[in-house]
Structure formats: C-alpha cells, structure tokens
C-alpha cells in the first residue's frame, strides 16, 4: 500500500470528503492540519507550489483538491 499524507484545515469540506473516502475504503493516512502546524504548511506549499487544501500525497504523487476519480485511480480502488 502506498503511504498517504494529507494536508488539511479544520473547516475544509473537501478534506472531510477525502477522509471519509479513505475510511470507507480502508486507506490509512497521515493528516497534517496546516491551520495549526506552520511546518506542515510550508511543506505543503513546497510540495504543491500552491496554497489550497486539501493536498494529498500518495506515494510521492501530489494531488491538489479532492477528485475522487483520480485519487481512486492512484490507490487502485475500483
């Protein structure tokens, strides 16, 4: 299984949708709240070259936003 790292804010709905999608499909993920963790915020901006959440890092492949189709494809979820 690829490692999944997600950068979120507490108020972001698409982050919640992504988390629910991961839970439903048994995907383990590491979550970083960029509203309260400045180091994570810098890391997210460096990785994605942008300032929107969620940012989802799947085994080094970086996705901005939550596009269920793309994320499912990256994780081989049918």
């Amino acid at each position, binding site marked *: 299984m690829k490692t999944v790292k997600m950068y979120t*804010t507490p*108020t*972001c709905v698409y982050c919640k949708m992504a988390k629910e999608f991961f839970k439903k499909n048994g995907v383990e993920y590491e979550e970083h709240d960029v509203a309260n963790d400045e180091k994570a915020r810098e890391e997210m901006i460096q990785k994605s070259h942008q*300032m*929107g959440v969620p940012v989802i890092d799947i085994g080094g492949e970086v996705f901005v936003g939550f596009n269920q*189709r793309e994320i*499912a494809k990256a994780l081989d979820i049918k």
Partner: protein
Amino acid sequence: MNYDYIILGGGPAGVAAAVYAARKQMKTLLITESFGGQSIVSADIQNWIGDAHISGLALAEKLENHVRSFPDMVDVKIGERAVSIQKTHCTDPKRPCDFEVTTASGETFAGKAIMLAIGARRRRLGIPGEDRLDGKGVAFCSTCDAPIFKGMPVAVVGGGNAGLEAVIDLLPYATKIYLLQYNETLKGDPSTQEKIKAHPNVEILFNAQTKEVLGDAMVSGLAYTDRKTNEEKKLDVKGVFVEIGSVPNSEIVKNIVDLDTYGQVVIDSKHGTTSQPGIFAAGDITDDPYKQNNISVGDAVKATLAAYGYLLNREKKSPATEQKTAS
C-alpha cells in the same frame, strides 16, 4: 437500458428530482460529481427549511441518503459528470427524440427525458494573473483556505454576502483584509456589514475595479483602479479571495436548449420545460431569478412532475406499467 429520466447534478435540485421520479416509478439515473451542490462548503446554512442550522456537509449527506433510499428506482453515478448530450432516434416526427448522455470517463447512457440540475460555478475576475496564480494565493473557497493565510495581508473581491462571509472567515487569521467593491455600497446582509465595518483589520475600498493579480511564483499584490479618481493603485497582499457571484454550467447544452444572455437555461417557470422537448431544468443553471436551495428543490419537483406528464403523453402509458410489461 433506456432510462426514463437522466438527472444531471446532485445538488438540491437533482436530489429533489430523483425523489419525485422514484415515487412516480420512473427508472432514473443520477449522474453527479458529488452531492450537496454549491453550499457544501458552507459552515452553517440557516435558511434550509426544517433546519435552523445545518452545515453544507451535513446537508449533502441528508440529500445523498434520501436519493439512496430508492435503490430499485434510482441508479447513482457519483464522481462522474456529463460532457455531452445528444439527441437520438429523432426519425419519427410524431415522437420526440431520445437522448444520449456521455460522461467524462467515456460511458454513454440512453434516456427518454433529461433533468439539467448542474447548477453554477464561481465567476472569475477575468484579469491577468488570476489563472496563473490560481491556488498560489488566488482562492475561491474562504471556508477551506482561510487558515493558510495566517499572518498575511489579503484582499477579498466582492461586496455581496459571499464576500462579506469570506472576510468573516479570514478575520481570525489574516493580519489585514482589504474588501474591494466595484460599486459605492456593499450588498450583503446589514448585520454582517456591521461586524466587518467595526473591525480594525478590515478596510473597505469602494469603486474598486481590479486590474491584475501580481506575483511570480505566488501572489504578491493586487492592482486596481479607483473608478472615482481613475487612480491606479496597488495592494500588497498574499491572498486574493474572489467572491463575485456565479456563472451557470450550461456549456454542454448550449447547442440543444435556448440560453439567455447570461448563459442561463431559459425555462417555463410553471413546468421547468426548456426549448427542447424532453429536456427539463431546475436550480441555478436556469433563468429563475432567485438562486436558493429551497427554490431549486421546488422547481425540480415541478419539472419532474412535468417530465412524468411528458413521458405519459409520449408513451401513452405510465413508466410503472412499462416496467411491469418488460419484466
């Protein structure tokens, strides 16, 4: 499978259409990226009838659950969107056309009637730098992204309710918030206006016409013209939140139904019919003047009852009897 009814969209209009179609035993397919519609990003909706307070996400869950309570009648394609609608079987002049819907992933679905409920998306400024710096300081979801601008000066464009709410979302984080309004007055709710005007970190700039979003890799400023003095001005900001209304998602039907000058689908407000027999529409994609969740629901119900009547008239029997004969 030739569906009786293909619904495009999973906001309040699409869901209301699905519920009424299911109860009329119309074999229905609903295609949507996600449920909930545009207010899914709202932290607290206070005008959804029946709920004094509900979050956009909770509303989306309720809507999805309602659609999924009719598994025998309504098939759901989620995470998917329609990219084209074609008329088919138009050979018999006495019988209206069928339709074929193609999705982004290349699947096609046949249907006898269509409900357009794909709503609207955020209007963009249309100025240099906006696209290039999208996500790099240019933001369209203050609820989502406000915390990222902690300790930074930002600009919010638009003095309607969405703009005022973006300012409220940013207050706990941004060091300075410029609110740019094209006209001389704010349009949003007076109670929210008062909250904003009283805050020392907020500066409201009236008669401001945005010119360019500045910055190399990330946003570093916003250029605008003071429409009163014609003076060109520049704000040093790291974020630009665009909150200037919406545009209808009507591109995929522009060759098949009549649109008004704003690109909205023209409907008959009694029946939700469009200029193309068999295609119905409701919600923010239409030329109905009030863009409201509750209105989208009611309009979709009207359109779906009209669609049921259309199918009865066309097939000379109800969709329910047709299924019985088929099985």
